[in-house]
């Protein structure tokens, strides 16, 4: 078992934990936590392939991670703002209660 495999497994585990959280939790913020975990798992994957990958391109992985981090930060900010706005309107952050757009 190589270091790459180990890191990939770790990333997969983290992703799946995040996924489980995103699937199960009712509170929007906690779902967001799950999503953050999934994103970070992806980052770990990028870095793993950069570090241990077959043909490491110089700095491709870090650059990707850097952008991903930036976008994740933006996503978190907007997501949380949405949640706050929704909370102010519907007095709830439970996902299944926010279903006005239901067809």
């Amino acid at each position, binding site marked *: 078992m190589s270091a790459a495999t180990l890191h990939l497994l770790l990333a997969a585990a983290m992703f799946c934990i995040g996924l489980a959280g995103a699937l199960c939790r009712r509170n929007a913020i906690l779902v967001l936590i799950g999503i953050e975990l999934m994103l970070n798992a992806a980052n770990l994957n990028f870095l793993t392939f950069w570090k241990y990958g077959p043909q490491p391109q110089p700095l491709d992985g870090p650059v990707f991670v850097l952008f991903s981090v930036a976008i994740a930060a933006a996503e978190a900010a907007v997501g949380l703002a949405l949640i706050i706005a929704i909370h102010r309107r519907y007095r709830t952050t439970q*996902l299944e209660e926010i279903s*006005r757009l239901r067809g």
Partner: protein
Amino acid sequence: MENLAKNLWVIPLLPLLAATVGTFLPRRLHRVTAGLSVAALATAAILAAAAFLSVVRGGALYSNVPWFETGTLSVRVGWILDPLSAAMLLMITVVGTLIFIFSTGYMAEDPDSGRFFCFLSLFAAAMLGLILSNSLLLLFICWELVGLASYLLIGFWYSRPPAADAARKAFLTTRIGDLGFLVGLIWLYSESGTVLFYDQGAGCLEPAALSGIAGRATAGGLALGTAISLLLFCGAVGKSGQLPLHVWLPDAMEGPTPVSALIHAATMVAAGVFLMARMFPLVALGGSAELPAPALVVMAWTGALTALFGALTAVAQTDIKRILAYSTISQLGFMMMGLATGGPAVGMVHLLTHAFFKALLFLGAGSVIHGCHGEQDIRHLGGLRRRMPLTFATYAVGMMALSGVPVFFSGFWSKDAILHSLSHWAPSRVPFLLGVLTAAVTAFYMTRQMIYVFAGTSRGPDSAHAHEGSPVLTVPLGILAGASIALSAVTTPFRPWLEHFLSPASTPSESGSVWGILILSALACGAGLAAGGILYRNLGVALKTGRDPLERWVPRMYTLMRDRFRFDEFYRATLVKWVGAAAWISAALDQSLGSVFRDLASFAASAGSWLSRTVDQGVLNASFDDGCQAARDAGGLLSRTHDGQPQRSLRILIAGVIALAAGLLFLATS
């Protein structure tokens, strides 16, 4: 000698300095300005005399200096002192000085006389520069400055609308010709590569350049030399008041009388003739005695028509200065004829003699006007013979010189030389006949004028109290009268010193034919004098009816002549009106162009909005509405699955992802 050529620029510089200094002197110091101007020009006259003498002794001189550079070309200008310019130089400085002196008396009461002398000096400087320049470009520059000075001087009494109008008219009319001149100048420049007249064999009037131009033709079969010459002649036509651009000259009499004397009789109008004389090697290019160059033919005909036109018009004028103005036009025509048919010397001799006696006549007229408190209409004058004897005497000398009274008067000899060369002109005899006719008419109208002004008794309040002016006015008259007579000593065909001086190469005329022409000329003059004397002998009686004797005799002809053959009316009805119409149309076009842009923009905007609305409603909405209805119905079914539970969707998604990943992995491994 070399220094002389290098320092020629001092001569025009002197009056220019006087003008510059005068400009900045306060108005109350106008006497200082006047004194400065006279002194400057007098000094210039002395220098000119020295230069003249040096030319008499030795040949021509010139020197060139670089002016500016463009491309690899160095544009140079220069000064020339050859017989042509030396004679003009002397004439202009001497006549000019006399006129300046006269002006100090004539303009003594005018508070603006400082300005007047500035302009006069500027004019003298420009004119001197013009004749001294060894470069067509520099000549053109001075030419335009002469135009500017004339504009300023004619419009000297700017608050009088006729004077201001006349000034503008003078500038614009001559500018038409000047544009031709400019084009000719540029053409010559680009063809010969230089605008220097003489430049050690490389000048444009020297054989090398001329032979380069000689064989070439322009589009339309016109010889290159002819084309350029004709363009230059345009300038001369404008400046020298030839038909059809003469209209400004009579109006220019609105300026003070010394101005008329200086500019419109003696010197400025001579610039055109001088230009053609200067450019004669080019103008005469490709011609022979039997078949003169086409440009010369055009010149001769123009001159002939102008001469006759001027003389005929002068017959029916009643303004003392206007008569002289038309006579100037007529004499300029003579000069052109002489130049075209007999070479530069013939024309130039008449120019020089004419300068003296025409200045004399104008100053005499000025003296009359001065004495009669500004009265210029000859019908209100009369009987001045006794009241202004000095003026009368000198005026008579001038009149006889102009009319060509034989033997003692320079005008006779110079005019005779022209008639002589006309008689030998191969292409046509008509100009000769016209010339003789003109000579007779000249004598006639001058007689008429003399009788009107000086004979009989006074017909107006102003002339009744006329008085002779101060010596400042009369002494110049005397000197000019003397010169008009004295010049005949060097202009007779028997001892044509001046002609030889101006053009050493010209062949002496055969004596046999000399006599014939002399007699014919004298006869023409005599006829004119006699006719005038007879027709106007009872002027006082005739004027009781309020009509001129000639008018009673040939009324229609007289009206036509009095109305100057209706040239001004013609121009006003055509050119001026057309330009006005063009301006009006252009302005309207411009206005509509602006609004067209604005309208286009708004139209585009509204058209765009209409289009988009139509398309929206008619096409998109209609089809989409139907399509959407169908889609909505279908969507209604599907929407059941979209229950606003994101996690439920996520689960389905993840299940799909798992299936996909498993499938891919399976495929990859197997």
